[in-house]
């Protein structure tokens, strides 16, 4: 049974799951829409094929950097369980070619590593699969792991802040 209740109680839509309804509500909420207004991220509504949805993030300008990275996010049992995502090629509808993943130093190199888990998830404390595989991460990275009270903004914000650092060099 879900521990999550909708922010704005209403009759649930019988056509979609509570998880999807939560996501739609979080996308409409001010914190997500702030990022949209600033040009930091957005969802591509046509790509929502539950439990998957594609979001884009705008990285800062760097040589060889695209205008956008697309994340295909797996949202099973959202928000009780956290999201996990891989970089996505929107045109080819497949995982982004590994040579096109973000490059950089320190945490950028680690989070976007392509030699772990078949590059099916970001190697980040805010990614469900990565966190589930590292029992010591909750203590090492307080405040970065998922809590059911968070929204998709948590995942997008931490990924974007990483790209918006000097450690990001393009792709």
């Amino acid at each position, binding site marked *: 049974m879900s521990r999550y209740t909708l922010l704005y109680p209403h009759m649930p839509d019988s056509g979609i799951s509570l998880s999807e309804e939560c996501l739609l509500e979080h996308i409409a909420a001010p*914190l997500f829409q*702030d990022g949209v207004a600033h040009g930091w991220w957005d969802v591509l509504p046509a790509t929502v094929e539950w439990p998957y949805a594609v979001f884009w993030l705008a990285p800062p300008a760097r040589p060889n950097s695209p205008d956008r990275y697309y994340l295909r996010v797996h949202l099973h049992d959202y928000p009780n369980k956290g999201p996990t995502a891989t970089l996505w090629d929107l045109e080819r509808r497949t995982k982004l070619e590994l040579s096109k993943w973000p490059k950089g130093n320190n945490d950028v190199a680690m989070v976007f590593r392509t030699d*772990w888990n078949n590059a099916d998830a970001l190697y980040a404390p805010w990614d469900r699969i990565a966190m589930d595989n590292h029992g010591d991460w909750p203590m090492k*990275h307080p*405040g970065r792991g998922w809590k059911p009270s968070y929204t998709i903004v948590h995942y997008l914000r931490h990924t974007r802040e990483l790209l918006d650092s000097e450690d990001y060099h393009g792709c």
Partner: protein
Amino acid sequence: MVQAKRIHVHFGGRQDTHSCEVGEYETVETIVLRLIGTGKLGDGKPEEIFLFEEDSDDEIPRSEKLPPHIKRCHVHRCRQIEATVIYVDQKKAGHFRPGTTIRKLLKWAKDEFKVDKQTKFDLRLGGPEADPLPLDAHLGSYVEGHSCHVTLYFTPTCRIQG
């Protein structure tokens, strides 16, 4: 033809922002009155509300037009906020405009505590293990009402290891 532009406004004590159109000839006074009308600032007199450009050290006078380059600003009841930053057993305090970003405050804290510039740090509210504050957030968003003071925790960020 009157040119309008869109600005993003952060409010004191709130984490969400408000986007609105601002006319070319609109003064700060009229913008503030409109923002009070959103109800996001609570009760209070218009003359007790001040508008700041993000990361600027200057208050924008009420009688002036909003400078055309401004896209992000902050409205708050405090002209300045005293931030006390705690790092292990050390404590430093500074005064900042409410529109100061957490990113700018982090740079200040790194200088004050003379820590290694290559090490990443976070600022947290409520305790050293609370959620790290977003870098693009404004300091004033974490200060409600008239208190004009906040305590933050400065903590090193653990690098992600393979």
